[in-house]
Structure formats: C-alpha cells, structure tokens
C-alpha cells in the first residue's frame, strides 16, 4: 500500500456541496499525482432518465479542471445505480479501487434536513478506506 492515495473517489451529484468536494479532491489529486474518479449514484428515477452524467455535468467539471489545473486524462467517471452511501462504500472495491473517498458535508437536498440522514456520517462510520468530508463554504 502506497503512503499516499493513488485513486481518489469523490461523490458528485452537481450540488454545491459536491462541487466543493470535487474541487478539494481534484486539487489534492493534482498535488499527489493521483487518479480522480467522479462517482455518480443513480437513484430509482435515474432508471427512467438515462442521461449520462458526463454530459449533464460537462460544463461544471470542465470549470473544476481548469481552476485546479488537474490533468483531465487522470479523470474518470463511475456512474452506477444505487443510494449514494452504498455506492461510495463500494468504491474501495472493483472497479474503482479507491484508497480515499471524498464527499460534501450534505447531499443535494439539504432543505429536507434530517429526513435524508447524512451520507457523509454514515460513510465515515462504515468506510473501509479513509473518508474526507469537505464543508461547503458559508453562503454557498
């Protein structure tokens, strides 16, 4: 096992929290020379709307790449069916093999408050690899 993460996985659903997490993960991956995998968990309705996250989120991800100076050839997507927590927990396994998982402090739907539970806390409790929880800057 390397002293530094070689593959960083970051949960990405387009929310301000996810953008903050992806920015941190991308900047860190650049410093460490690591690969970065943007992980998109597709919910039940995602089966009816099969748009590719690479397309949906092309513009904000391009902005992140530019602002962090990250090498886009080291960037990939993992788009899979599931609840965000389950999907991120499995990122330590094939095919992602992440050795660090990064998430925003809340999901997309913070207005629903605790009805959603907290993906980041569940993940931190159960993940087999280190987890970084990135807070959204105030007012974001």
């Amino acid at each position, binding site marked *: 096992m390397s002293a530094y993460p070689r593959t960083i996985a970051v949960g990405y659903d387009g929310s301000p929290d996810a953008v903050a997490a992806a920015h941190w993960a991308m900047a860190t991956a650049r410093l460490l020379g690591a690969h970065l995998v943007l992980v998109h968990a597709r*919910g039940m309705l995602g*089966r009816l709307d099969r748009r590719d996250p690479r397309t949906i989120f092309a513009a904000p991800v391009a902005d992140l790449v530019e602002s962090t100076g990250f090498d886009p050839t080291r960037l990939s997507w993992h788009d899979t069916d599931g609840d965000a927590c389950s999907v991120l927990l499995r990122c330590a396994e094939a095919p992602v093999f992440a050795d660090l998982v990064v998430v925003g402090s809340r999901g997309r739907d913070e207005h629903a*408050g605790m009805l959603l539970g907290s993906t980041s806390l569940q993940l931190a409790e159960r993940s087999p690899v280190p987890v970084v929880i990135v807070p959204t800057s105030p007012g974001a």
Partner: protein
Amino acid sequence: MLIVNDPLDDLGHEDPGHPERPDRLVAVRHAIAQLDLGGDQVNVAARAATRTELAAVHEGAYLDELGAFCYEGGGDIDEDTYATYDSWALAQVAAGAGLVVVDELRRRGEGVGFVSVRPPGHHALADRAMGFCLLNNVAIAAAALRGDGERVLIVDWDVHHGNGTQTIFWNDPDVLYVSTHQWPLFPGSGVASEVGGPRAVGATLNLPLPAGATGDVVRRALDEVAAPVIEEFAPTWVLVSAGFDGHLADPMADFALSSGDFARLASWAASFAPRDGRLAFFLEGGYDLAALRDSVTATLAAALGDSMASEGETSGGPGEEQIRRSMRERASSLELVRDQLADGAAP
C-alpha cells in the same frame, strides 16, 4: 378468503409525472375486482398506526421531522422521494392498514391478507425516507407480530433490495428477511455476504440476480438457497413485500418476470405459512399499470389456491452462475462472522 384494507384516500400523495402515483391503487382495485371473490372477500377499514406502533420501527425524531416536513407543504426529500401536505396522514394510514389486516387474520384464524397501500415501504429506514418510501409498512406489521412472540418470515420479491427492512431487522433473530432482487440496482445493498448482525447471524438472506432474470432463476434461488434456511427458521407468520416491478413490462428495472411467475412465487411463499391465516402480502413497487393489475390478480389467486395468471411462467434467463456465487459468498460470510463472534470480536 381474502382480507384486504378498504381503499385509501391517497389522491393527496402525488407528484405530477412521478411513477409512484395514485393510478397504481386504481390498477390494484381492478386486480382485486378481477378475482370476483364475492363473499370470500372481507374488507377492513384502515386506521392510522399509533405513534407507539410506528416507534417500534422508526426513530421518534424522524417521525417528528417527517410530520413537520409534510405540514410545511412537503417537497422533494431526495432525488427519488417526495412528500406532500397529505403524505404524513396517508403514510400513517398505510402503515395502519397492515396492522388491521394482520389483526383481522388473527381474529378469524383463516384467510390471506393483502395490504393495498402506497407509498410503498421497504426502502424506508428507521431514520430516513428513500426510494419512494416514507414509513416501512411491512416492518411495522412484522414488529407488531414479533412483539407478540411470533417468528416472522419476510419474503421480499420486489426487484429492488429492501434495504430498509433488512437494516431494521438486521440484529433480530426472530425475523428472517429473504430478498430476491436485481443487482446491481438501486439501492446498491443486498449482496449475499450481508447475512445479519451478531445476534442474528444468518437471519438476513440476499439473493441478488442479474438483469434479464426469468422466473425459473428466481425460483431456483429461492428453492435451493432460501427454502432450507426458512424451514430451519420455522416461521409462525409469513409477510411478503410484494413488489411487481420485476415484471418484464416495468420501466424501473430489467427482470423479465410474468404474472405467471408472480403466481408461482406466491404459492412458494404461502407454502411456508404454518397454517391458514398466517400469510399477508404488502404492496411495494410495480409501475406498469397493466402488469401491476395482472400480477396482483395472479398473486392473490395463487395464494388462495386458484389460478388466474394471464401469462405463463418464464425461463431461460441468466443468473445460474450468480446463484452459485451467492451461495459461496453467504457461506464464507457466515463462517467469518461466526469465527469473529467466537473470538469475542465485534464483527
């Protein structure tokens, strides 16, 4: 004899364009009408489940939050799940419907129960709504039975894994949770190595199957892997999380099941009820209305010992290799957890 709850006043729980919609219960009412049971159908009035009954499964803070969220007008809870002003009241009645159907079965000591409700329940966790589900209806009924000393088998044949039900009874040796589901698929849990908590090792049994799975594959998984475990468990009650989104026509997933397959699954589940009056089906998913209607008719007819499937059973789909793999994964996981327990370590 079929024991079913009165139709719910569910029109207020709707999000235009969302597949979990009031027309689903219209389709189910047609399904029940197709059975043409006359005096062999008993309708019972549903009531709201009490706070105590809900709290046997759900955390008090979650119940408070869900009620407050609805009274403020509701909205999207996550990308899949919505609630409206009326949803809190409806969800409590949906949970209560399961309790009154079970009570009526106990009072009569005969019949087959059908809990015709929405929103569905099996994804709802103790402290979290998800996957279209707000309150876990089948778990609330199972918890009530378990509180009376019963040993409850929950068979979940919805195409999605019932992560909520599994988690709620994870460490409960008196509830055996058996699920067949497509994998990978939402919610992402339900691999065979998930076998239950330290006090209930083996009381969770997952049979993940690939897209395209047909009836013969689902039955083989249940017969070869689940049946011996259920026989050893010896349930006193059988509750079925009956989702019909595994039908070939359903847009939410990729199983290839027919109404005839659901009839066969219903007979299979019924065979584990120790006697008449100990079997109830809870509506979970099912989003193609014609497939839902015909599958509910076929299921209930089969459970009542009749045959009304409009489609034959299916066969020849993939999954044989997955069943073998699941058996191996379950066996090694059971061994690992038992070794850890023997060593005194928390698994």
